[in-house]
């Protein structure tokens, strides 16, 4: 549409009106033509007004269709009911910052699977959305992001944390990740390994073969450590298929210095208890557990269960370090947290004490980031349909999110800050942060609670021989027991041989006597036969 110059505006409109009025008297005679021309006149007015409209209004004025694709099922901590209040809050906030942007948000069920893509496609039949938030689950996100990138629609997710999404040249070009990916978390480990000069690591993870969160978490750690020359070993467990064999795991731990685990809290506890029984928690090995999402609904992460192993577990967990997201607290966050919790309780979901997890914060910040980027893009002359520009505008920038500063790197991934927590008080069993890792400058900050003893590998017996043979192990016979048994058997054998040897000797003698008799007989016969032969000759 052409934009008329402001000076000519009035004159052009008048011209149009006059030309139409001239025609009118002629049409007056035919009623039908009159109505037709009136419509034509009105349509022309409409066109003209619409042309003027963007010129007249100087403020930003856009209707943004937002499609949120998340699971409906509330067993996910990023379900629609949990995230909706955060997005509504962000909408209000954006309304104050950018009054012209009007977000119209629709929620669709991703079912953490193929349903996500179907929901997107069903919704896009008539009109495609302008922004997609989510999905979080890896496999759902992969399909949705591919389709969205194909359609030039920006996608922002607080999930899609797998390493594969870092490759944004083609398939995932329109994805911005507002929460730090597993690869970012793994940078913490790289920094620790470099700092302490550790060389070998055992990665233990539970692969449930469906959503595979721990698989992708461990993949991030492996990708990061693999780049340096560390010796990385794996132990994969499948808690749904088989019972976890902690003895087998312990055997694999002997060859590594560091153990990094990703599994449900109960399994981690079992492993730590088994390690404690075998005295591996005495400082010869460093244990890590990855527990990222700041939410108590991922299982009781602490050692306490109320069973008979609590005391041992507390001692075992003194050697366990937990890698988690760093918590920052802003005054604005408190208000946000209260409002979101209120809405969630109204929705009828259980009131957990820590309901505001990384995903809820992330989707709030996602909407703000989009508003920020769109505002810039429109100022530069483009519009909401330019997915590439909007995505580029969201990358390589820092802004204030609801829980603190949000820094997006030049690849569209959030730089993350992580904390390493250890048990500060072995009496009460409480944890505190000893390290903070800042993703934005990749620096490791030591906290006052840091005790270098905890992180230094103690001299340890390199052999596989434990100090106390475990007779209750059954098939796991220790070498010492073997030696003792062997010695006993050897002695028994020698004694048996000694006694048996005497019998044997007697037998030999008897046989020899008989042989002599026989030989004598034979000799005689031979001599006879020879004689007879000779005589014949």
């Amino acid at each position, binding site marked *: 549409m052409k934009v008329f110059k402001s000076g000519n505006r009035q004159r052009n409109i008048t011209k149009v009106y006059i030309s139409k009025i001239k025609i009118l008297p002629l049409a007056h005679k035919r009623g039908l033509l009159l109505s037709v021309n009136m*419509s034509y006149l*009105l*349509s022309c*007015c*409409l066109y003209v*007004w*619409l042309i003027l*409209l*963007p010129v007249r*209004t100087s403020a930003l*004025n856009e*209707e943004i269709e937002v499609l949120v694709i998340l699971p409906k099922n509330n067993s996910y901590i990023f379900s629609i009911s949990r995230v909706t209040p955060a997005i509504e809050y962000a909408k209000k906030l954006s309304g104050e910052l950018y009054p012209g942007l009007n977000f119209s948000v629709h929620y669709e069920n991703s079912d953490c699977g*193929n349903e996500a*893509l*179907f929901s997107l*496609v069903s919704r*896009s*039949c*008539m*009109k495609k959305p302008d922004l997609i938030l989510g999905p979080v689950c890896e496999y759902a996100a992969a*399909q949705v992001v*591919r*389709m969205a990138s*194909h359609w030039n629609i920006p996608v922002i997710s607080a999930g899609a944390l797998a390493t594969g999404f870092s490759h944004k040249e083609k*398939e995932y070009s329109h994805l911005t990740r507002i929460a730090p990916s597993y690869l970012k978390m793994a940078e913490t480990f790289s920094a620790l390994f470099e700092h302490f000069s550790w060389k070998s690591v055992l990665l233990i993870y539970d692969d449930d073969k469906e959503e595979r969160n721990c698989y992708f978490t461990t993949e991030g750690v492996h990708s990061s450590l693999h780049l340096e020359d560390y010796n990385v070993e794996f132990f994969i467990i499948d808690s749904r298929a088989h019972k976890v064999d902690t003895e087998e795991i312990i055997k694999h731990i002997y060859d590594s210095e560091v153990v990094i685990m990703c599994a449900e809290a109960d399994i981690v506890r079992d492993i730590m208890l088994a390690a404690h029984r075998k005295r591996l928690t005495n400082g010869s090995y460093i244990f890590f557990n990855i527990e990222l999402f700041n939410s108590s609904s991922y299982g009781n992460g602490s050692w306490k269960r109320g069973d008979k192993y609590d005391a041992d577990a507390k001692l075992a967990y003194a050697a366990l370090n937990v890698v988690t997201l760093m918590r920052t607290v802003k005054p604005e966050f408190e208000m946000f947290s209260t409002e979101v919790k209120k809405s969630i309780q109204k929705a009828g979901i259980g009131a957990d004490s820590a309901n505001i997890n990384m995903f809820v914060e992330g989707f709030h910040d996602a909407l703000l980031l989009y508003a920020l980027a769109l505002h810039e893009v429109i100022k530069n002359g483009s519009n909401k349909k330019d997915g590439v520009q909007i995505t580029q505008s969201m990358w390589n920038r820092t802004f204030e999110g609801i829980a603190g500063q949000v820094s997006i790197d030049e690849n569209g991934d959030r730089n993350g800050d992580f904390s390493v927590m250890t048990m500060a008080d072995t009496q009460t069993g409480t944890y505190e942060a000893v390290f903070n890792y800042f993703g934005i400058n990749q620096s490791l900050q030591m906290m006052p609670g840091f005790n270098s003893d905890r992180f230094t590998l103690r001299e340890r017996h390199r052999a596989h021989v434990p100090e106390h043979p475990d007779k209750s192990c059954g098939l796991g016979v220790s070498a010492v027991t073997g030696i003792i048994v062997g010695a006993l058997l050897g002695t028994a054998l020698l004694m048996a041989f000694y006694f048996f040897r005497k019998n044997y000797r007697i037998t030999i003698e008897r046989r020899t006597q008989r042989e002599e008799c026989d030989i004598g007989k034979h000799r005689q016969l031979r001599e006879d036969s020879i004689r007879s032969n000779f005589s014949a000759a």
Partner: protein
Amino acid sequence: MGLSCQLGRGKPPLLLLQLLILLSWGPDPALASPPERRDRAGLREVVLAVILPRNNTAYPWSWPRVGPALERALGRINADPALLPAHRVRYVFENSENEAGICSESIAPLVAVDLKFSHSPWAFIGPGCDYTSSSVGLFTTHWGLPMVTAGAPAIGFYDTNVYNSITNTGPTHKKLGQFAVHLQRHFGWRRHALLMFSDNKVDDRPYYFAAEGLYSELGSDNITTADLVLNEQAGPVPFATFLQDIKQSGRVVYVCCAWDTFRQLMVNFRKAGLPQEEYVFFYIDVFGRSLDSRPARPWAKGDADDPIAKEAFRSVKIVTYREPQNPEYKEFVTDLKADAKRLFNFTMEDSLMNLISGGFYDGVMLYAQALNETLALRGGGMPPGKDITKRMWNRTYYGVTGLVQIDENGDREIDFALWDMTDIDSGIFQIVSVYNGT
């Protein structure tokens, strides 16, 4: 549509009136239901969406191979008013390959959705690759549209809970597995079989899926299986280790891999001096690529190992599809080759891959017939895909590839051929037995 997006809020009602008048003149906005298209002759248009690899002729279902057959089928349907009265069929094509020329399961759903939005097809023809067919098959099930293919042989597609829109008029690995069960019964081998296959996990994994068919069917016949996986991409194949495994875990060995690898395996087998009479190797070569020479000498490569290979191949039997024996097929292949040369500048050889093209031809004809019957009952616009699909299942149709018998799950009953060395001196292989799936 664009105008309605640019209007802001709170405008006077007069504008709304103007808008209404304008819209009543203007073109219709995007319709909620697929438009009923009629061409100039007043015939209703049936659009078929075709998703196949455009250029890579290594696939038996690539466009230069299937395109001529499809053109011929549509030509026949449109020319004969009795086949599908009052309708005209046309197709729209999209490529399922990525830049590397490999069929891609990420590109396929994108083009499927684009085709659905732009053309509102009545059915999908293809894809052929397993992973690609899976993503498109999930969509067609979701949309309730029939999908007809002669590819997609993996046994996963037999699951009608997930893929209930797919009708397969070509050979599938479930039927291959059933043939293996029949073979084991025939020879009296009731206990155990060893499956060896190549899998590099990055392509469409054809050997893996073939072995999966065998594994599944043999397993349900109470025959235990062990598997050995080769990966030619991961360095030189450790044949010595594999022969050890074969010695320990199997006497009846099914091998699905490239011909060259199989030949090397047999040469190594012979060189290892294992007692040949105790072993039998079934080489699954469904398209008979090792038997291309006339007369068939699958052991011959023209290198120094030929005599050893000839000896080794005495323990080998080769499983292939059976070429349709009906006269229409020969005519079809002749036409196919001529059309391929003319339309796609592609020289097609005589091979068993042509039966895939025949399968697609018969699939389209069967679809047209089922559509005709469904329309005759209900009339009206596009019928629900479920009805048409149901009509294609559990029925018999006589097509260019002979008797097309579709079972109650949408898979076709197929015939197999077993090749064996009939003359030990010359080493020639011939068909010794034929399995009639129907």
